[in-house]
């Protein structure tokens, strides 16, 4: 593609909507950086996106608050939300659709038929399983059925948000609806055979950072691959490290400066929130590196509230907000003194002087002894003479 040609293709259509090429590339760059792809891939991502390689995305909603959809739209620059919707082909989304009712359902099934095995199925919300799943029905069909039918025909499944990843709020004790996350549902004994080894990407968070989704989808769209996942199916580019490891307030933690009560002196100084119950040390999420709304500091700790561990099934909606937690994988830095420190050495000059002194004394003693031994002969003669 030569210079100027871009105007007549995808870029051109974007510019027609008032989106500058620079803003578009910038979004691709952020997305690439978020997913951990090197800088040279940005061009490829942009090209793939405008060359019509927008992957079809079917977005299903189950037991959710739609917050995960909202997170995608809550950006500081309104144009970006458009961009997001333009980088992917969002072919079914109940909240954003203009259509409703039967038309919407027909559109859904059309997309599924046309793109079987190719579309990305994004699922938002938990799946209730009790009483045959009657606690969530869309268009008269239970969430369990929808998840099975549409999910199993997808090319990739992305469970966005904590509810879809592991159950979220609906699964909080006593979990009256039997809510569970998408991976747990689709990988159970009944459904697993139909999964045919399809990867389920989990993007927990309440809500997760939009770039987690964007990065995953872009990589799939550009290269047909999914990012590296951990044992829970979470992309490691976003979920490998805990908040604690990259937290900007970490120096305060290390120095023992803590907030004791909200509003106290320490709180005003921005000290570590560990003692107020921050779950950062056990929460895997990229929030401490990449905040929300592309605004630095727009995240709970940044505004002075402890992290409540929204991505972690063991923490969010289980452990009380202000209960302290243990550190996950504590890796104490080497700056801690060892049990037995090395307290320093000995001056070689001093050893030398001591050696010389001792040597001189021994030498003098030996000499004296020899001299006296020589005079021994005289002494003996004298006393022998006297004895006679």
């Amino acid at each position, binding site marked *: 593609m030569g210079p100027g040609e871009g105007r007549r293709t995808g870029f051109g259509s974007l510019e027609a909507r008032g989106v500058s090429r620079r803003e578009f590339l910038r979004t691709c760059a952020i997305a690439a950086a978020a997913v951990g792809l090197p800088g040279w891939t940005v061009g490829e991502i942009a090209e793939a996106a405008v060359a019509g390689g927008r992957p079809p995305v079917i977005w299903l909603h189950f037991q959710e608050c739609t917050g995960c959809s909202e997170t995608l739209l809550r950006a500081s620059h309104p144009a970006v939300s458009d961009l997001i919707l333009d980088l992917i082909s969002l072919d079914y989304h109940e909240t954003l659709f203009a259509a409703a009712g039967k038309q919407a359902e027909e559109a859904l099934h059309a997309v599924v038929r046309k793109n079987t095995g190719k579309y990305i199925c994004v699922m938002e919300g938990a799946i209730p399983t009790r009483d045959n799943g009657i606690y969530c029905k869309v268009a008269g069909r239970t969430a369990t059925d929808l998840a099975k039918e549409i999910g199993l025909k997808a090319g990739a499944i992305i469970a966005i948000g904590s509810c879809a990843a592991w159950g979220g709020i609906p699964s909080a004790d006593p979990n009256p609806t039997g809510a569970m996350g998408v991976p747990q549902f689709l990988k159970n004994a009944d459904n697993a055979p139909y999964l045919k080894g399809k990867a389920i990407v989990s993007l927990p968070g309440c809500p997760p950072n939009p770039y987690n989704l964007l990065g995953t989808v872009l990589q799939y769209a550009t290269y047909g691959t999914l990012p590296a996942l951990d044992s829970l199916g979470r992309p490691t580019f976003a979920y490998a490290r805990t908040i604690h490891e990259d937290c900007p307030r970490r120096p305060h933690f290390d120095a023992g400066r803590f907030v004791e009560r909200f509003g106290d002196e320490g709180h005003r100084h921005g000290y570590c929130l560990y003692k107020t119950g921050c779950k950062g040390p056990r929460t895997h999420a990229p929030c401490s590196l990449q905040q929300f709304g592309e605004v630095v500091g727009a995240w709970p700790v940044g505004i002075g509230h402890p992290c409540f561990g929204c991505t972690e099934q063991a923490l969010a909606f289980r452990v009380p907000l202000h209960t302290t937690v243990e550190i996950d994988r504590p890796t104490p830095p080497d700056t801690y003194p060892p049990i037995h420190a090395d307290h320093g050495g*000995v001056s070689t000059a001093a050893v030398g002087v001591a050696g010389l002194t001792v040597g001189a004394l021994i030498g003098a003693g030996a000499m004296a*002894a020899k001299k006296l031994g*020589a005079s021994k002969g005289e002494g003996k003669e004298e006393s022998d003479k006297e004895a006679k």
Partner: protein
Amino acid sequence: MSHNAAAVGGPILTRTFKVCLAVFAMCILVLAWRFVVGLGPTTGMNDGFPWGIWIAFDVVIGTALACGGFSIAILCYAFNEGKYHALIRPAVLTSALGYTLAGASVIVDLGRYWNVWKIPLLWNWNRNSVLLEVAICIMTYVFVLWIELSPAFIEVWEKQEKFPLLCRAARRVHRWLNRYLIAILALGILLPTMHQSSLGSLMLIMTTKLHKLWHTPFLPVLFLSSAILMGYAAVIFESALADEVFDRPRETKILASLSGIMVAVLFFFLGVRLVDLALRGRLGLVARLDFYSWMFLLEMALFLAPALLLLSRERRNNPGIELISAILMMLAGSLYRFDTFLVGFRPGPGWSYFPTIPEMTVTIGFVAFEVMVYLFIVKQFPILHTGVSPHGLEAAAPKPSG
């Protein structure tokens, strides 16, 4: 109670004296610096090794080497071996100087020396503290030694008609001495018995920090016996040295029989040490042949060598062998103390100690000072014996004083 002793006379400012003076001057400079900046910058002592050579050498080894007065006193007064009388005054002089300088070393080593006057106050005493016993004993013993030595000074000052005040004071002290000398002499045997064994007891509490080759409940016994040994050896050494320096005939017979006694003490020491280690199953530590094993073996060799050397009467009469044995005994006892207080002391990994050059300057400077004062006193006051009978025995019984 005078002996056939006389001042040696001669010039004070000999070359030896001047050299010692120079060394002592350096020592004073270091001490001034120490009192201004503290012990940290001047010495190699640290939190792992809070006691260095100022304690281990100056006090512990120094007082043991200064036990000549004690050892001779035991012989002369307790066992009635009057023939050693000629050796008493030089021995007591060395003892007095040695203990005084040990006391000075303590003051220099103490961090909060301005509180030292609180130690003799009875109501402060922690009677569990072995160090308290050592401190009080040594403080008292220094006085006792100078009182024991005072007849030498009194004999001279009594005759100084030119200074009537001094003369009269000397005579008054002389009369007091006559009355209380026995009490003083008995103290002169009691006090070292107490504090030399207590110096060993100091290390009893370090059950985990003193190497098992040296930590034993017999520490007090071992320290007392080696102190007696070192005292005798020091007497032999110094009398040989003095006789050589001042060109006097050697006291061969006296020294020979002293050596005989020492053989018994040497074997006693070795016996206690080895049997104790064997019975507590610690001899295996020697077989390890690590640094500590070698120090232990060196100690044993230094104790055994003079014992074997002096077994035969003929060798005991050889002044050269006598001197070597005396030196070996002093080294043996000194090494034993060094090992107990410094080498075998293990506060834990990461700690090490070696004296700094300023620290060693002070120790050597104190010894130099001792030599200077010894030379001065011996030349001015009747310390060293005069002519001796051919068999090395006292020609006459000690005359009554008066």
